[in-house]
């Protein structure tokens, strides 16, 4: 061993009691905890939401209206893939599956994502409407999930809340820009919201699983008020009214999906299934 150390580094520059950083009480290891079946199911829900939305956003790369937006949507997708990886890894600990097993080897009925995230990209305004709705929902969700009694979920949420806050900002800027832009951009923003709005209700429904996860999971129904409060000023400033119309029947948490998810999964899973076990 020839490691040189500089003696000055043994000096404690802070002049107070040293904390042993390897034993911080709030320390949490991202990969050690094992989830119970119920917690794993909940982690799967959230992981699936992020992964499906990331896959949708990734399709914009090279197709966005401007280069900066290619980069923005790509970066947002990357954050979401990060959240999905942590959540799916954790979900897999209950059944001995890896994050990749869960991402590539489940068929459509086994996916637990909300129906809004699988909605097609449509035009740019559709994507922004979906992004605005989902990032506001996720921000409220992760902000509360920080207090989960499950240390792993709380840690993922702590990280994700900060990142989703930036996603929320991004979508707000675009909603204002499109709504208050030209007649055409405004028309498209209105159509985007009215096409995405039927899927809003499903986000806030409490499934029976929540009754078994008191303190661990966040009740979606408890987020609705904060969500409405956060979006109202943006709608007011954009001179938009909250769309009214039919409410989709939902069921994503039980594996019921629109026809769009199967196509998205086919695209996402084809390579892995054609070459099982292949490595880059």
């Amino acid at each position, binding site marked *: *061993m*020839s*490691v*040189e*150390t*500089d003696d*000055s*580094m*043994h*000096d*404690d*520059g*802070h002049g107070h009691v*040293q*904390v*042993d*950083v*390897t034993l911080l009480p*709030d*320390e*949490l*290891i*991202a*990969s*050690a905890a094992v989830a119970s079946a119920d917690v794993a199911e909940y982690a799967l829900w959230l992981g699936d939401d992020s992964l499906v939305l990331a896959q949708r956003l990734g399709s914009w790369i090279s197709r966005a209206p401007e280069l*900066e937006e290619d*980069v*923005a949507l*790509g*970066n*947002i997708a*990357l*954050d*979401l*893939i*990060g*959240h999905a*990886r*942590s959540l799916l890894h954790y979900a897999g600990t209950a059944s001995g599956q890896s994050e990749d097993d869960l991402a590539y080897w489940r068929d459509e009925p086994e996916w637990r994502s909300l129906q809004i995230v699988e909605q097609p990209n449509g035009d740019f305004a559709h994507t922004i409407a979906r992004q605005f709705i989902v990032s*506001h929902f996720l921000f409220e969700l992760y902000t509360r999930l920080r207090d989960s009694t499950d*240390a792993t979920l*709380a*840690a*993922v949420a*702590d*990280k994700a809340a*900060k*990142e989703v*806050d*930036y996603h*929320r*900002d*991004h979508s*707000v*800027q675009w909603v*204002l820009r499109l709504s208050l832009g030209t007649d055409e951009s405004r028309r498209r923003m209105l159509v985007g919201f009215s096409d995405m709005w039927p899927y809003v209700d499903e986000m806030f429904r409490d499934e029976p699983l929540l009754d078994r996860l008191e303190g661990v999971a966040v009740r979606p129904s408890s987020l609705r008020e904060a969500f409405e*409060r*956060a979006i109202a*000023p943006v709608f007011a*400033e954009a001179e938009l009214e909250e769309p009214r119309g039919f409410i989709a029947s939902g069921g994503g948490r039980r594996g019921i999906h629109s026809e769009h998810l199967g196509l998205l999964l086919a695209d996402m899973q084809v390579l892995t299934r054609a070459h099982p076990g292949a490595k880059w």
Partner: protein
Amino acid sequence: MTSPAPESTARPRPVDAESLRAWLVAATVVDPEIPVLTIEDLGVLRSVSVTSSGVDVALTPTYSGCPALDAMRDDVHGALTAVGYTNVTVRLVLSPAWTTDWMSEEGKLKLIEYGIAAPTGHSAARPSGPAGPVRLQLAVKCPRCNSLNTRELAHFGSTSCKSLYECKDCLEPFDYFKVL
């Protein structure tokens, strides 16, 4: 290497000599996307401890999806095994979540020299209330000409951790390391 300045908010180094030795090896690893910054400068290196059973290193990702993290993990493992350590484990720690407040003052200076504007202000100062169209943002200083007459071109830049700015005086675009 010199010790970080007292006002630095970087992660504290271990106190026992054996662990500090290993820490200094791990601290030679740089961010592959910003090669002037070590993982210690970034605050990504959380803890290093040497025990009879081996070396345990904890890293904190800057962003959940940061693709540089896998490279940093491998490089830490490689750096420690190269100098003779065995049984090296590199763990990823998510909580407490990484913040730009953990970046060392020295790291910020290196960033500016490299042409990237360093995070201004503290993450605690980021308002996190209801989203509004305008957020209080301290002026970002151009790393080339030091002008404060700059504007954000794009909130998301070349990597997750950066946004794209332009200087209205020297007219050069530059990356800004976002406050998180």
